[in-house]
Structures are given as structure tokens and as C-alpha cells.
């Protein structure tokens, strides 16, 4: 599903001490990057409850970017390792839910790495663009509409047959 006109929406979770400051730095330096990511500032990547990621995806986001301090540089000593742990587990859960794990990405960016933040953001937007829209959060009717919009018209499915295919 490669649709070049598709503009993904991405939610980004940033750490207050490193990557949020990196995004500030990217701003101060007027570095241009893809506008698809909307940021949420947390005090630490360790604050990231994996359900936030699922909430964002179910709200219609096509991808989620999580950013934190480099290993060994956590403002709270070692909480980014806990974020890493949760991230790796979450990726496995995503597979079980039928979501491409590549839709969620963890990036380390220190407060000095504005350029890295900008580059990683743009790169991730392209990765998600290739994956296509997620349409996970939309209700069945909307989903079918989206599917038929993106696929050719020979693909016809009724909401009822969809339900049957999903194991209880």
C-alpha cells in the first residue's frame, strides 16, 4: 500500500530533559523536518505507559515515536532502560494485535542532538508513509470506506463477514 499522497499522523512522546530539548534546539536552529509528528512532553521516557501508544493508535495515529536520553545519560539515572524494556515488549504485543511493529519507534536523542531529532523524525515519517494508513481506531464502517478508497473496487467486504473472520 504505497500511496505517495498519504500523510501519516504520528504522535511523539519526548523526554523533558533530552529529546524535548532536542526538538527545541531543532526549532532554534530552524532545521526543517516533516510536520507529521505531534509531540507530547513527559518528564521521562520511563513515564511512557504502553497503553498511551495503543491509545494514540486507536485514536487514529499511524505511528508513534518514543524518544529518550541515550543509555547511561538518563536524567533519572536509569529509567530509559525501563522504557526500552517496555518498548521491546510492546512491539511483541503489537504483532499479536496485527499491527506492524515498525509503526512504533524508539529513538535516543540528547538535548544537544537537534539535528538527529529532526532527521529521525523525517525518516520515521517516511517509514510510516510506506506502511500506509493504520485505520485501526476507526469503526468498522469507516474502515471499509477507507479500504475501498485505497484498494481497487473489486475488493468488497461486508461488515458482517468481517466479524466472522475475527476469532472470538
Amino acid at each position, binding site marked *: 500500500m504505497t500511496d505517495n499522497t498519504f500523510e501519516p499522523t504520528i504522535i511523539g512522546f519526548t523526554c523533558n530533559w533530552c529529546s524535548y530539548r532536542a526538538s527545541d534546539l531543532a526549532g532554534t536552529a530552524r532545521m526543517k523536518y516533516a*510536520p507529521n509528528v505531534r509531540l507530547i512532553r513527559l518528564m521521562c521516557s520511563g513515564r511512557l505507559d504502553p497503553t498511551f501508544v495503543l491509545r494514540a493508535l486507536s485514536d487514529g495515529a499511524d505511528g508513534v515515536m518514543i524518544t529518550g536520553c541515550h543509555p547511561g545519560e538518563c*536524567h533519572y539515572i536509569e529509567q530509559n532502560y*525501563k522504557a526500552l524494556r517496555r518498548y521491546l515488549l510492546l512491539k511483541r504485543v503489537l504483532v499479536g494485535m496485527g499491527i506492524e511493529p515498525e509503526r512504533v519507534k524508539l529513538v535516543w536523542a540528547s538535548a544537544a542532538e537537534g539535528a538527529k531529532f529532526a532527521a529521525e523524525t523525517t525518516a520515521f515519517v517516511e517509514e510510516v508513509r510506506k506502511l500506509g494508513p493504520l485505520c485501526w481506531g476507526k469503526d468498522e464502517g469507516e474502515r471499509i470506506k477507507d479500504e475501498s478508497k485505497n484498494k481497487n473496487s473489486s475488493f468488497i467486504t461486508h461488515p458482517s463477514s468481517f466479524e466472522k473472520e475475527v476469532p472470538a
Partner: protein
Amino acid sequence: MTERVGVYVCHCGSNIAGTVDVVDVANWAAEKLGRQGVIIAREYKFMCSSLGQELIEKDIKELGLTRVVVAACSPHLHEKTFRTAAKNAGLNPYLVELASIREQVSWVHSDKVVATAKAKAVVSGAVSRVIENRPLEEIKVPINPNTLVVGGGIAGIQSALEIANAGFHVYLVEREPSIGGHMAQFDKTFPTLDCSACILTPRMVEAGTHPNITLLTWSEVTNVAGYVGNFHVTIKKKARFINEELCTGCGICQEKCPKKVIDDVYEAGLGYRKAVYTPFAQAVPNFPVMDKENCTYFIKGTCKACEKFCPTGAIDFNQQDEMLHIDVGNIVLATGYDLFDARRVSNYGYGRLPNVFTSLEFERLSNAAGPTSGNIVLRDGKTTPKSVGIIHCVGSRDKNFNNYCSVICCMQGLKFAHLVHERTGATVYNFYIDMRTAYKAYDEFYQRVLEEGTLFVRGKVAEVTDAARNEREKGKLIIQCEDTLAGKQRRIPVDMVILSSGLQPRKDAKEVGKLFGISCSMDGWFTEKHPKLDPVATMTEGIYIVGCAQGPKDIPSSVAQGAAASARVLDKILQKEVALEPIKASVDATLCSGCKICNGLCPFNAITFIEDDKVTSINPALCQGCGTCVAACPAGAISGTGFSNEQIIAQIDGLMLRNLEMA
């Protein structure tokens, strides 16, 4: 209760308005977010100006706003400004939210349509979030006026003296038997060539006798608990085997002790000390220390020569290590540096070629109180060198070892050149990559050394070898180097080589950092709060770093930092209490199942399990507010103020514009 939200969109001159249609954003917010509670949305040229702030204050008072969203710059810049404005108008400051549409939107995107759409989403997210904000109060904690200074080098001494002179108590802890640090080992100090001992020892004595300083040498900090204003510190005072009450420091025990030991610390391995010793004559305090590892009595069970001759009966072989518990409000870390181990640069031959010396060895060699009484001689102890090569940047500015510049080595190399020249008349070669003589009177010193006739070769030395190729090189050390100014390879035979070794973080810097809850840079130096504007504070409130613990630096800078940290400490002490951000986690005991999943997650020991109630509890004073435990609690029993689940989920919904459908 429905909240009454005011949205304020800032133009920031053209910084925002140039890329984002601010009028459209404000109108959109008023129209679309009205059902969420937005009752007013305004745009203004500079929200942070006093007129802009007045606008918000007026609306809070007249329209009865209960929440405020300012769509402007990053919260790191003006969050405080707008929180203060809200406070002035009688609204709790934590009910204000900043939507960053400058750093995160207008400055990083160029398409006006796209940027305006993103700005709307960001504002929507902030509105959804702010509704879930709860009023918070800053937490005030009293400050213990006592201070702990760790490390008794010049930086630590300076810091301790400044605080003590201001009338507050200081505990000065030093791992070695005496304070003084590396500076006590030096002969001369650049660029003025003051005698190091002459300027240092009066300070040492002052620190040792100051009524407001408790000096704890031969001691180490083993545990730190608590937080700014209220640290609880455990210090291990190692057994000296000397009763400090009785000892007069007469030195007879050292004289009578039959056991000679190579002194690797103070004499850099060039001289001997006894098994019972003070590292040097002017040591503060001047009570000796018994070296248990080498003392004949401790090894063989007989001797006790010191005890026999001690006129005051101060020797106590039964002394035990003591654990001291002290409470302090602030901590200054002045733990210093380790010299780069020149053995690692094997092609320079240190440890293999006898007449290759490290900088610290040369300091002892040139020191009038050193093992050679200041005679600069070769390793045989008698031959005066006729030619000396000084190699700069050993272990520094080298991808194989340390990338950073060690700051002091150029000036140190010049000082060595001067001393060799003055005392031996030998020909001196300096091998340097770049000559870095920044700071007051430093370059003048370089000029002086140039005029004295020292030779300078620009180029990184490839090798120091004793493999002679001709008569001229026989019996000499040959320095093989590319002279980048002459553009040719040179082999320069010399009698003595001095390696101007770099500085590196203490071997245990990482563990020390962990003990005090501060972090180290990639290179291993302690990380300051801000490299320019807050160079002595750390991210952990109440912990300061001074001297070489923070990065390589010379004596004047170390002293300046020591004094700077004291000013920060005194500032804290005089405030009598400190306000902490109310971003804290707390446990709802009725929801906690006692699973203990969160118990191991807190690096600040804020989480404890209450056995009696079988629930977990969080000490708000220790909690730093990272929120890791909040995210981990499977029962949702832990909530985090300022960044609650409700706030974050509302912000996600808002950013995804789900709030428009739901309302």
C-alpha cells in the same frame, strides 16, 4: 464543573505569525473547541510582553477563566512567565498549559497550511490536557545549614573555606591521610611560578583549624540518602591506628618505623615513606596513618616500634573503622582527577624505558621537598640530563584514548621546560599538536619560554625508542616525530623524556556519581546542569560539582568553581527553605494490591513497601517525578501529579482531534 478555558495565540512578531495563520488558529479554537470549554480565544503580537500578560490576567479576573492555554514558544522558555501571570491573577499556576507552536511548529516547518493545521492540533491537545490539570502547590522543605564537601584538593578547600567563613558548618571529607590534593605534589604553579606549597599550605592550615570545619581525612562517603536540604550521609572513617586526641604530630613514630614502603600516591612512585606516615611534612592534619597492609606488626605480630617510642601513647593497634552519620543540606563534590596512565601509549615507552617520566613524576623530581631535593636527574638518581624532550597531549586529543583536550598540559609542558632550562641548562624540546595557552598571562609565559631558548616542534610524536641508528643516537632516547612545520620526519636524541599526560575522570567516578545521584558525560566527567549558564550545579538539586571532577581545568578555574559552588550553597542556606516542583507520584492505598512491581523501579529509593498494610508507599520528598512507577502499576494505583494518565490521554485525544467528535 465545566471549565472556562482561555486560549492565547502568540504571534511572536513574525516568528510564529510568519508560518502559522495565528488568527485562523484563534478563531478555530474559539469555534471548534467551544464545547470543550474554550470561552475566549485571542491572538496577540507578543504574549510574553507585559501587555500580553495583562491581557491574560484581565481575562482570568473578568471572565472567570479556570484554565489557560498559551500557544507560543517552548515551555522551557516561558512556562514560568505565564504561570506567574496566572498566579498574580489568582489562578493556580499549574492550571496554565503552554502549547509550543514556535519551536515545534513555525520554526521547523515552511508550508503555512500544514503548519497552521499542526498548530491547531497542538492547541487542541493542550486544551484537552489543561482541563485535566489539577491545582498544585510547590513543596517547601527546610534546608539543613550544614554542608558536605567531598574532596580536599584546592577546589574543595576553597569551597569549604568560603562557606565556613560565612558562618556555616562544613564537613570536609578526604580519602587520603591529608588534604591538599594534587596541588600539594607540585613544585611551581604556572604562569607566575609561585611555589605551590607556599600558596596552598596556608589554605590547608586554615581549613584544618577553622572552627566551622570538621575535617574528616582518611574517610570516605559510603551512603547518601535524602534530597536537597535534607541529605543523610554515612561516612566511613577508616582506622588510623592513632589516637587523634593524644597525637601531637611530633613524627617520632615515622622516624622509628623500620618499614620502608614505595610511595605510589604522593611521591608518584619515586620515593619512600614509612608504614606509619604522613604523606608530607606540611600535611593537614598532621596525625600519621598506619598502613595496615605494610606494617610489620600487622603482618608478623611483632615490632610495635612506634608504640614503644611514642611519647604520648597515641598508637592504638585496636582502633576500628568508624561509621559516622551526618545530616547536611547541600553537597559539593570536589573529587578531582586521575592522571592518564601513560603506559597505555606503549609507543612512548613509559614503564619500559627508564628515562621516560610522567608529568607527576617530574613534579616530584623538581620539587625541593621531593625525593631528589629538587635535582632534576635521570632514573639513576645522579646524572643530570643534557637534553630533555617534553611530549604534549599524551592520552588527550587522541581517538585511541581520550578525545578531549586536558586543558592544563600545554602550560604544564611549558612550566617543565622552564624548570629544566633554569636548573640544568639542558636543551629542551617541546613536541606539541597545537599550543593552547589561553587565559590571563598564559601566552606571555609561552613567549617567555620561547625567549629562554626552548625548542618547539609541531607534530604528534610517533615513538620514543632506545634503538639507535647511529653514533649520535647511541645511549639516548630517540623521539621520532613528523615536524609538520618543516614538513619532514625527525629523529631527536635526548637523555630524558617527560610525558605531559592528560587528566581523566577518577576510576570510581561512575560509582561516585551513582552514590550521589548525578550523571557522568560520555567521557566520565560529572555532568553540570548547564554547560554555560549553570556550570557548578547538577541535575540533582543540592549537589554541586567543582574542580576537575567536572572536567579538566587548571588551579585558578578550580578555585573559581569552588567559590562559585559556595555561593550557590549559601544562597540555598539563606533561603532557609527550598521549593520543589510538585511533580510527584503517590499511591492510592485502596487500589494497591501489594504486587511490588514498582518497588524495584525507583533509583531514588522513594518507594517502600509497608509490610503491616501490605501496600506500597512513595515518599514525596524523595520522589523526583519521573513517573516510571506510574506507568508500571498494573492496578493504576499510582498517580503522578502534573503528568497524570488523564492529562496525557486527554492530550493524545486532543492532538488527534478526537475531542471534536466526542464533545
